[in-house]
């Protein structure tokens, strides 16, 4: 990670700009750029900050591609950019796994249905789907019918476990039809145990909850895909981060 403070921020901090900025923490007044490179030293992505707020996202681009604006919409509006910047800022300051997910260089693009859906909460799930799309050979579009439930459940579990142990829980079964109260409680207990690293994410537990998810979440119901029955993408992110 490279921190490039602007001169005015250097002066503001009495030339101690690096004392209050680290991999996870940013000073509320930070103005400048943060760049990330891979182990080969190649630029991966970065952020432009002004007074602690993200104003632009930087990414590696193809020739002739705009290096800053990455909203691809028929009408890319200022309010969309503003909402996205706010969502990005909230997202990367939420916690360790959020940073790990966001710094992942292999993720592809993400799509929002409309301006209202550009939020830090939806960004979490959509960014994860983008990483699934890059991770699973052939992408996730092939699972639109068979395996849809596997893809969706992994994203829901990820969203639930990456929150801090003090954060409220959970989303996966929030609107499940006729979901027994005891199972809802037990899912929360399982998630908190993983958040606190009391237990690790076991494939057998995951598969039990995946089956319940398919039974009770009618909007995500699909035939299951056998090779997606374990949380490969979650585990890959966990292993590559220092969060657990």
């Amino acid at each position, binding site marked *: 990670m490279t921190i490039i403070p602007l001169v005015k921020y250097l002066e503001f901090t009495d030339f101690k700009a690096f004392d209050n900025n680290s991999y996870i923490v940013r000073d509320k007044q930070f103005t400048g750029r943060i760049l990330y490179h891979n182990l080969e030293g190649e630029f991966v992505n970065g952020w432009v900050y002004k007074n602690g707020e993200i104003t632009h996202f930087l990414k590696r681009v193809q020739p002739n591609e705009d290096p800053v604006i990455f909203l691809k919409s028929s009408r890319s509006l200022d309010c969309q950019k503003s909402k996205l910047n706010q969502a990005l800022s909230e997202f990367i300051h939420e916690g360790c796994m959020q940073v790990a997910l966001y710094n992942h260089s292999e993720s592809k693009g993400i799509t929002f*249905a409309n301006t*209202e*859906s550009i*939020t*830090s*909460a*939806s960004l979490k799930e959509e960014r994860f789907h983008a990483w699934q799309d890059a991770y699973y050979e052939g992408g996730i579009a092939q699972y639109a019918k068979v395996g849809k439930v596997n893809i969706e459940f992994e994203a829901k579990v990820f969203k639930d476990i990456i929150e801090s*142990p*003090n*954060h*409220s*829980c*959970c*989303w996966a079964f*929030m*609107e499940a039809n006729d979901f027994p*109260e*005891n*199972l*809802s*409680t*037990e899912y*929360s*207990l*399982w998630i*908190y*145990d993983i958040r*606190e690293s009391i*237990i690790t994410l076991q494939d057998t*537990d995951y598969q*039990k*909850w995946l089956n319940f998810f398919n039974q009770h979440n009618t*909007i995500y119901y699909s035939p299951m895909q056998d090779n997606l029955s374990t949380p490969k993408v979650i585990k890959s992110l966990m292993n590559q981060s220092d969060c657990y």
Partner: protein
Amino acid sequence: MKKFVFAIFMLVQFLLGQIYGQKFTDRVFNVEVRESVSSGTYINYSDRDRDKYRTSPKFTSNERSARDNVNFRFNSISKKDSIERTLFKAEELDTLKRGIAICQIHIPSGKIVSVSFALQNYVDINKLKRFKNEIETNLYLEVELYGNLEKEGYLLQSFPIFVSRRRK
């Protein structure tokens, strides 16, 4: 001697029967010892009013679920810790394992209207009733809405309890 061993065996069976699957109904809670699908045994103190608050909120954008239209922020952690420390002695909190409070949240206000508990230790039920009352009166979740709310309703959220001493 055989009679004595048999009597001890029967007593142990009786006591085990008292623990696992034990169920009783209180004025406020239905209490039940349950075996979890993923991990060990826990004691469930289910709010008897919980079923009054089952209706999910409805949004005008039908294609998106309530889950996609709502986000929660639980910013009352220090207040919750303070309530815990008022109701439970430090020695008690040191022995209690982390449990969870399971709350029905009114959308859009964020008010907590019902509280149940899932715990790993037995806790004085009168203290739990006071805890429930304090949570409902003093805590709330900040609710962010991303869609147009058509009809108010309730969503479920949990948060951890008996962790205040660990954070100190």
